[in-house]
């Protein structure tokens, strides 16, 4: 029990003292996960919309793949990205392995199915006649997408939360493609694993608490936006 209290005290001390490394790791964690989520949203929402609104050959296969991807183990994604970005791999010349970019790619691949799946479900729940009315009002393709996003914002914010949650909380893939290099690719999850391995439980607990608080704050903001119901 003392161990846990010591951890909490250590977390408070690290924060209050403005520990440079912790702040750097926290900011890097946020930057990488935010970039991965933003990419997943930019591609995932239109993809979810297409899957929700269009019928084409192979659609069922893609939806099944998306559903499978929603529960994809991060280490599998990490392995896949590592194999592709490895120095002798197909994209090895880009020298991306063990860089934050590689971590963004891995987290993006983990977030994408969640964003697509949630977007597909919420856009599919829109009354098709309402979509007809959007076209009838003279909306072009992008305006219809904008109106659909607006109309399904509650569901889509759930997609943002799920996507961001998957990105920020995963550790396996980040280890595999980032390498947990101090000052370069170390993020809160990988640092926590490292410190736990070293037996530095206070620091591990401190890092975990930062991670949880960070995730909570982001979700608090998103929830506040989601629940602001009568926006004009």
């Amino acid at each position, binding site marked *: 029990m003392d161990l846990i209290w010591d951890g909490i005290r250590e977390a408070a001390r690290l924060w209050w003292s403005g520990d440079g490394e912790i702040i750097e790791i926290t900011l890097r964690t946020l930057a990488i996960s935010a970039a991965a989520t933003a990419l997943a949203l930019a591609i995932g929402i239109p993809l979810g919309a297409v899957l929700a609104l269009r019928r084409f050959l192979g659609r069922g296969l893609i939806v099944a793949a998306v559903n499978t991807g929603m529960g994809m183990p991060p280490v599998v994604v990490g392995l896949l990205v590592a194999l592709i970005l490895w120095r002798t791999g197909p994209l090895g010349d880009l020298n991306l392995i063990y860089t934050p970019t590689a971590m963004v790619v891995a987290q993006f691949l983990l977030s994408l199915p969640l964003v697509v799946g949630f977007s597909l479900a919420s856009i599919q729940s829109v009354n098709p006649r309402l979509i007809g*009315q959007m076209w009838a009002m003279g909306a072009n393709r992008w305006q219809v997408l904008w109106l659909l996003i*607006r109309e399904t914002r509650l569901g889509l914010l759930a997609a943002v939360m799920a996507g961001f949650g998957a990105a920020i909380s995963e550790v396996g893939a980040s280890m595999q493609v980032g390498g947990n290099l101090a000052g370069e690719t170390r993020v809160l999850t990988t640092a926590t694993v490292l410190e736990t391995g070293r037996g530095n439980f206070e620091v591990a607990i401190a890092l975990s608490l930062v991670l949880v608080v960070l995730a909570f704050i982001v979700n608090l903001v998103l929830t506040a936006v989601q629940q602001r119901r009568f926006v004009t």
Partner: protein
Amino acid sequence: MTDRVEAHIEIRDLVVQRGGVSVLEIESLDIPRGLVTVMIGPNGSGKSTLLGALQLVLHPARGTLTLDGEAMDADPVKTRRRMSAAFQEPLLLSMSVQANVELPLRLRGVDRRRRRELAEHWLERFGIAALARRHARQLSGGEAQRVSLARAFASQPEVLLLDEPFSGVDAPTREGLIGDFAEIVSEARPTTVLVTHDRDEALRLGDHAALLIGGGLRQSGPPSEVFDRPVDRAVAEFVGTENIWEGRRSESGVYQAGGVRLASTAKAVALGAPALLCVRPERIVLTREDDGSANQIRATVRAVRPRGPVIRSELASARLRLIADTPLTGWDELSLSVGDEVITRISPADVHVIEDTD
């Protein structure tokens, strides 16, 4: 009527298919500019399909649709921005009433000040200015439909496409809404296509009517003509001509049907030729006194049913079955019961004759 008024929309050789089966086939139909064309017909007749084709959401297997002589599908977004639509469901978006009405203008890139001006004007015209800041989810059915119509007018469309916009609201609200709509449409005069199955609505709002049955255009013309002068049995049945009697022309202007002699001023069929004699139920007058005029038939009351502002009675004379709608006041004066004898009077001008080709 279409001969005298310029066509705004021209429909030619239109075929719309669903699952490889034709659900709509129209050889030629003109939608006159600045008038209200009511599209009537039973369920599944293709009215809404036609509206869907005009909105460019259904893609015809064949045929052309032109607006001012230009193919409507050449640039669908541009064409849709010259039109507006309102449906049975109000289909408002999750935003305020004002934002809903401004939305079509926003999609067209109209600046904020002009958007607000137009939205306020149309909300005012539809009597819902007080609801401007209310969220769409907080409206009653009638209010929501007013917002939907205000939104349709806000973009000042050349063409207004309406699919039974009044049928989802309760009767008293509906009456007021139709009254306001009639006034607004007669001022703004967009080319309007109104799908309806309601005869009163068609007669009250329509300048022109097109009747579809089984995916084909059966009759078009002024609404009163379509309702009073159906071209065949199917049209007659749909427009509520309850009395359709099979008969033959016996002499000039005189027909025999079910053992009864009937005079008609309608265009005659050949002597001895089979004919369908059509009389609308509200055109049959019930009376106690024989005034010596033509078409007075003595009949027995078989059944009586109240139908809103009228009483519908079923009567029998020889082998003829008659259905009459009598206004409540007139009915009370007659004080008729089942089994009573009464004289039915039909003006020869109200006996419409169709050549019976079956």
